[in-house]
């Protein structure tokens, strides 16, 4: 993190807008495209004002054509531009899966390094009550078995801004997951226009000594809430925010576990097949000897997200679930 003189308190959503605005101003190759990103400013209000400022050539309202949004962005990226494409909901990654997992992620490698694919794919994610099985997902882990792109998931306004700026400046493709429930959250963000957060560096969001809770995106906040709960039991929880899934900062993870000897991994996605499983496997492969107990995963129930908000709430993990796992570990 670059040092900065001042800082302002802004929302996560505003942080995204500022990152886009500043990078568009800095580099005219940066263009934004997606459904309703232009004149409407995005259905979650993350891109207001850009259309007015940069015009229809650089802020492109697309047809409802997710394959074109991502595949077209690859075409833009290999011909001299630096597109920031948006899928209106992260769930729609499955509507452009070949384009994301094969074209965006592999075009450079498949062609022997002859191209770079400097693009960012923004994907608003998460369950926020009533979205149902196709508008509520946190599908970050889908990208894991398709190497080639970074996977970034910010949890705070500062991270959102700093990571998005880093992603736009990065010559690799980046899958960038923003949590819809975080858009309205506020936090201090440095003023420095060159403030970037390096991709792939974990951040200890709270120090602790007894149990490490690993999380990213919204689950970081659940982990922090669980740490508060655990503190009342006299348990000291360290919250490690991976800030995404690739690159994975295994050094930071192993160092924290070395200190605590106990680990819970918390995610919003269903327990099975998510980032938590991957991180668990990395730990069990490399530092199992440091552990004093099982590696616990917290995630949503392994069911499609029901559309009824009351049922959705029953399916989602909670700080209490994380707290319980922590308690079980400290015995």
């Amino acid at each position, binding site marked *: 993190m670059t040092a900065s003189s001042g800082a302002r308190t802004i929302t996560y959503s505003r942080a995204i807008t500022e990152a886009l605005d500043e990078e568009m101003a800095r580099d005219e190759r940066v263009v934004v495209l997606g*459904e*309703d990103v*232009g*004149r*409407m400013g995005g*259905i979650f209000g993350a891109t207001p004002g850009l259309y007015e400022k940069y015009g229809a050539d650089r802020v492109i*309202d*697309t*047809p*409802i*054509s*997710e*394959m074109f949004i991502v595949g077209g962005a690859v075409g833009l990226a290999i011909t001299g531009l630096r597109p920031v494409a948006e899928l209106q909901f992260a*769930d*729609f990654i*499955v*509507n452009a899966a070949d384009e994301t997992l094969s074209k965006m992620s592999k075009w450079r490698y498949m062609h022997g390094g002859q191209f770079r694919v400097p693009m960012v794919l923004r994907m608003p994610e998460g369950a926020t*009550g*009533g*979205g*149902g*099985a*196709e*508008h509520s997902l946190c599908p970050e882990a889908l990208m894991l078995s398709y190497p080639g792109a970074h996977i970034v998931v910010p949890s705070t306004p500062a991270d959102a801004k700093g990571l998005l700026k880093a992603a736009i400046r990065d010559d690799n493709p980046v899958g960038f997951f923003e949590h819809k429930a975080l858009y309205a959250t506020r936090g201090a963000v440095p003023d420095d226009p060159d403030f970037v957060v390096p991709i792939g560096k974990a951040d200890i969001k709270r120090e602790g000594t007894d149990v490490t809770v690993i999380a990213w995106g919204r689950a970081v906040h659940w982990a922090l809430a669980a740490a508060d709960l655990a503190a009342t039991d006299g348990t000291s929880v360290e919250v490690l925010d991976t800030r995404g899934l690739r690159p994975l900062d295994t050094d930071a993870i192993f160092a924290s576990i070395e200190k605590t000897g106990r680990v819970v991994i918390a995610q919003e996605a269903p327990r099975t097949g998510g980032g938590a499983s991957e991180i668990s496997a990395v730990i069990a492969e490399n530092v199992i000897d440091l552990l004093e107990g099982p590696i616990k995963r917290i995630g949503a*129930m392994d*069911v*499609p997200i*029901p*559309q*009824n*908000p*009351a*049922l959705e709430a*029953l*399916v989602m993990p909670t700080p209490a679930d994380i707290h319980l796992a922590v308690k079980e570990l400290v015995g």
Partner: protein
Amino acid sequence: MTDPKTKLDIYRTMVLAQSWEQALMRLIDENLAPASYHPGRGSEGSEVACTMALRESDYLLYDHRGMAHIIAKGVPLVGLFGDFLGNELGTTRGYGAGIVHVADPDRGVLGQSGTLGGSQLIAAGAALSAKIRKTDQVTMCFFGDGAANRGTFHEAANAAGAWKLPLVFVVQNNGWAVSVPTEYSTGGAFVDRANGYGFPGVAVDGQNPFEVHDVAVEAVERARNGGGPTLIEVKTVRLLGHYLGDPQAYREAAERSTSATRDPIVWARAALKESGEATEEQLSAIEAEAIEQVEAAREQALAGAKPTADVLTEYLYV
């Protein structure tokens, strides 16, 4: 040509859908149902008039805007309220709420894909199924001008054209996909796309549901008789926002007020009176009856029990 009785039926069903939607809005105001809904005001003309060309055993893939097609297919209102209330009386037994996945297999209502365009493929499959099973069922699939630009349409339309499937595509062109004007995001005209797949395309004014019905009856009959698919492009309007509470800052006042003059319910009412096919008394009676019907359904639906945690895994694996 739509006969007077059918015209009245169309009017009755449009009014029923409108009343239902008004009652839903009230439920939302009262915080009894979640606010995520895409109001259907303006497109009842195409939804009702097209759907009424179907039989009960025919298949319907409705779209996300409004509920008029679902109501026209005969799904009980109590079930619809139950879906929005998220209780056991809903067609989905409490799973759905908000922009729902209404389902009624007995009436051929095959559900909805939450990702736009998904239903186009399922519709093509359902139409192929009827062909394989040698029934004379017709499938009708609704979607907006925005969803018409997803690649799913191409794959569905090509298969339908290649195999002359009994399938009627209804493109509800209301000029907008959320904030994006159709002409900005669309090359050419939807109606002209049909020809490229080897089947007829017909454009029709959605303000006039009787004309829409004529077109739909012809398309459904063609499909039923082995003549293959049809694409109907209905020029319609979105009287309200994309979703409830949409400030619509992207929309000019002039365009909104032009749209407002094209309400199919208002038009049909005037036309029926003008032609003498209905009297003011008849029309008022229809309207009153609709409100009554809706009220009764609403009351009944409110009594439904909320689902409990044990349903969460009930319908996952057989």
